[in-house]
């Protein structure tokens, strides 16, 4: 295998880990999915078309791996309680910002998996819709409609969740 390909794949690892973590909210599971993805990518490297982006190819593999993991682990769903979300996101020093992070993580948690997957590719990875369509394996129109529904859900979550209107008062722990 060429060093160039290894180098290109390695550059994508942080992005793959971030996306996997955002999807699963579980660091161990995310790294497991990324490892499976990397192994599969190297095993099937002959399938990578050089005319395509290596990012799309790796994210497509990762997405499929995440679906398989989700199906296998469906009885072990990470709960949406505050403690889990608290552990899942970085804790900035600014309390108001931290509340925002908790809210967005909680809102993402409410989304169906297919909508969350698409939203994260757009918002987190900044991917164009046609690339997302290629990764997820659906038409571009479906990507747009999933994005639209996801954003409407986020809007409703903001609007109808009491904690979204009234910032949570965090208790000081001595």
């Amino acid at each position, binding site marked *: *295998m060429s060093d160039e390909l*290894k180098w290109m*794949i*390695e550059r994508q*690892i*942080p*992005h793959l*880990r*971030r996306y996997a*973590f*955002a999807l699963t909210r579980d660091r161990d599971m995310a*790294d497991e999915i*990324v*490892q499976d993805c*990397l*192994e*599969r990518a*190297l*095993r099937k490297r002959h*399938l990578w078309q050089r005319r395509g982006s290596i990012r799309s190819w790796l994210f497509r593999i990762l997405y*499929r791996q995440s*679906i*398989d993991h989700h*199906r*296998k682990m*469906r009885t072990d769903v990470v709960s949406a309680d505050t403690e889990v979300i608290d552990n899942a*996101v*970085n804790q900035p020093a600014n309390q108001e*910002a931290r509340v*925002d*992070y908790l*809210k*967005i*993580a909680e809102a*993402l948690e409410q989304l169906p998996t*297919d909508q969350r997957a698409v*939203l*994260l590719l*757009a*918002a*987190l990875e*900044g991917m*164009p*819709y046609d690339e997302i369509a290629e990764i*997820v*394996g*659906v038409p571009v129109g479906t990507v*747009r409609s999933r*994005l*639209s529904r996801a*954003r409407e859900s*986020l*809007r409703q979550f*903001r609007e109808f969740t009491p904690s979204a209107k009234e910032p949570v008062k965090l208790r000081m722990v001595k």
Partner: protein
Amino acid sequence: MTSALDDICEIDLMAYADGLLDDDTARKAAVEAYLEANPVDAARVQDIMRDNEAIRDAYAGELHRPVPARLLRAVREPERRQRNLPTSIAASLAAATLAAGIGWYAGQHGDEAVTVSRELLQEIAGHYSDNAGTQMAMGAGTAQAIGGTLISSPSRSVLLEVPLPDLSVNGYELTQRKRVEIGGHDMMHLVYRADDSTVNLFMHLNQRAESASMIHAEEDGLTVHHWSDGPMGYALAVEDRDKGAQQLPEVVRDAVEQAHFLDEAPAGFGGESDSIASEDPAGGTQQPSSTIPPVQHQFN
């Protein structure tokens, strides 16, 4: 005559909010002019941009976390990787006892017509079930057999869990699964349906722990893709007119590659009592793909 502002639609607003119009200055300017004149949509776009920023901020630190050594090793030393179905484990299975007691733990049973000829399926199953100890005879020059012969170990009982492929992202829903016996070969038959086409997947046991690359057979408007992975063989029949199904063989092969051995039977597994002739009493109802349980296969 319509102005550029009349031309702005939801797609433009989303693309603008997602920063996808940065390279299209003319369109971006048109959207901005539209937003100035439409405060409701402007507020909505602002919300989307704010959500995007919040999501990016929430996970910003992830890009700077140290990469675990095992992930770097996976790229730098891929030869150390192990297969999901290592031959060393498969070799401990009992070829002589495979035929004696096989318990499928499966769900629904139905009367779906098999659209692939029995002769072809029989040929495919027989293809991989050659007598242990003899070299597998492959019909196509592209096939490569690797792995070893199964070793008899009658005292051991082994469970193999095979995930059922979820093809819903490809537009196919699993509508039926049942056991069929064709030419003396016990198979699991899965039926996936899209709006106007059907895909059939057959899983069967190999008597040899060998893997072979995919072979394609054509028959009456169908293409049957078949391959072998350790103790399991697979045949996927897709309709030639269904151009959307061309990527399915790869998708299915990737999914079933997650097959793995279980240390003990999961709750609800019927073991020998669920042997070949059994049917699920709840048969007939459709099962949503999102709740597809895997198939567990027992070797006694």
